[in-house]
């Protein structure tokens, strides 16, 4: 639905989104970033601003609360980000209750992402959706292609396999009112072999919520393939953090390949 030719039938001006993901702990961006000066400053806000300048359509901050447990620094970071950014952003990691959710929204986050708690307490999806609207809740589905050929769902940052059927789980999170699915193919994560286009192709054009593809991006063509396969948005971390590509370069490639994306003046 994001190709400019409109052969797909549905007339829509909606753009495919490119979303950098920032892992944050103790108020610092963690995990392999090449932006040394920003890392040394321990400043996710500065990195977020850089990505916004590059043309990021949205940002996702992960693990922010898990890392501070009960402290206010995560909320303070969210507040700073909200004051500095003029694009939407989601926060996730360690959200356990509706009260946690409220605090993050109150601090200025646009969306929350749930992973472990979505599985452990799925009613929380309904509660958030009812109170704040489905657009405010992203469910992060970590799926792994097991050796036996099955698709397994994982929680706790990909460390714990849970007894949940993948296809049922996708339907359930939609039924419970999530607005987007952040689909991370764990078997692709870090491999640089591209997003899992087979998984993405299972979501048809009339699937009721947007799907963000995550895991496996190595270069611009991977983003294009994911969108062609059916992703509404594409998320990556390492490729941006290691400065292999800027967000702008990815978007330029998509534009040159006739995909509707938001243009920004550099």
């Amino acid at each position, binding site marked *: 639905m994001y190709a400019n030719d409109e052969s797909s039938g549905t007339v829509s001006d909606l753009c495919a989104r490119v979303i950098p993901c920032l892992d944050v702990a103790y108020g610092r961006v963690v995990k392999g970033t090449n932006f040394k000066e920003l890392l040394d400053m321990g400043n996710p806000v500065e990195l977020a601003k850089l990505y916004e300048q590059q043309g990021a359509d949205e940002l996702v901050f992960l693990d922010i609360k898990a890392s501070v447990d009960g402290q206010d620094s995560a909320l303070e970071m969210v507040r700073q980000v909200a004051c500095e950014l003029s694009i939407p952003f989601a926060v996730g990691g360690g959200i356990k209750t509706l009260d946690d959710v409220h605090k993050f929204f109150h601090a*200025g986050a646009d969306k929350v992402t749930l992973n472990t708690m979505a599985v452990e307490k799925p009613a929380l999806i309904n509660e958030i959706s009812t109170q704040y609207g*489905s657009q405010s809740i992203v469910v992060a589905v970590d799926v792994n292609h097991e050796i036996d050929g099955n698709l397994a769902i994982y929680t706790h940052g990909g460390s714990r396999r849970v007894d949940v059927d993948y296809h049922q789980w996708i339907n359930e999170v939609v039924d419970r009112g999530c607005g987007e699915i952040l689909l991370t193919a764990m078997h692709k994560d870090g491999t640089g072999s591209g997003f899992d286009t087979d998984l993405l192709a299972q979501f048809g054009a009339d*699937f*009721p919520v947007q799907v963000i593809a995550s895991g496996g991006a190595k270069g611009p063509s991977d983003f294009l393939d994911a969108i062609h396969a059916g992703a509404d948005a594409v998320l990556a971390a390492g490729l941006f953090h290691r400065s292999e590509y800027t967000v702008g370069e990815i978007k330029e490639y998509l534009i040159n390949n006739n995909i509707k994306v938001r243009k920004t003046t550099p």
Partner: protein
Amino acid sequence: MNILTRRTLSRVAIIDLNSGNLLSLQTAIEAAGCELTTVQKPDRKMLNEFDVLVMPGQGRFAYVMQQINDSGWHDFLLEWVRNGKRLVGICVGMQVLFEGSDEDPEVAGLGLFKGRCHKLQHPKTPMVGWAKLSGLKPSMLAVGSPGESEQHTNKTDTSSEAGFLAQPKRRETRFDAYAYFVNSYAITECPFVTAKINYCNSFCAAVQRGNLYGFQFHPEKSGQFGRELIKHVCQ
């Protein structure tokens, strides 16, 4: 006359209808160089105290209207507009400027514009994300650059609304008109439309009649274009 020296700091008030976080909007208005106040209830003095009222709205149409009615804003807003003062409605805050919405058919809107909100027909609803605005009218063209196909018309369009709407160095500071939307309902027809988009149906992204402005999208989340638009309507 130099437009920068003529302009005084405009006094802007955000109407807090207890429907969502205001931080981004507050930041954007302050960044635009305006004197900002956030208000819960109307007061006649406001007619002299403020130049611009900004009314963001999130949630159901009925909820936002109830907040407007319960806090006494209904009559005040009508008087505000009657006095030719500037009012800017954002998201559901734009929708309530109209007569009603299919979301809550029994609830009357402010009726400042004729027409009703209809549900989006797209399978992925609410619409969440960025879209390029089209059919930009002069007040939007002051900030957004026209699409390639509309390029040839912009010269005459932009000059027609000089004066207080003009931006210094306007030609250099125009931005690609991509806006961030979060909505399930929208106004599909309005003679005062100033920008449109398609999402299965065509709907009004922005409307304007005199000093009455409506944005269906979130300018405070719409990047540099949105920031400039806020500056444009608040100054």
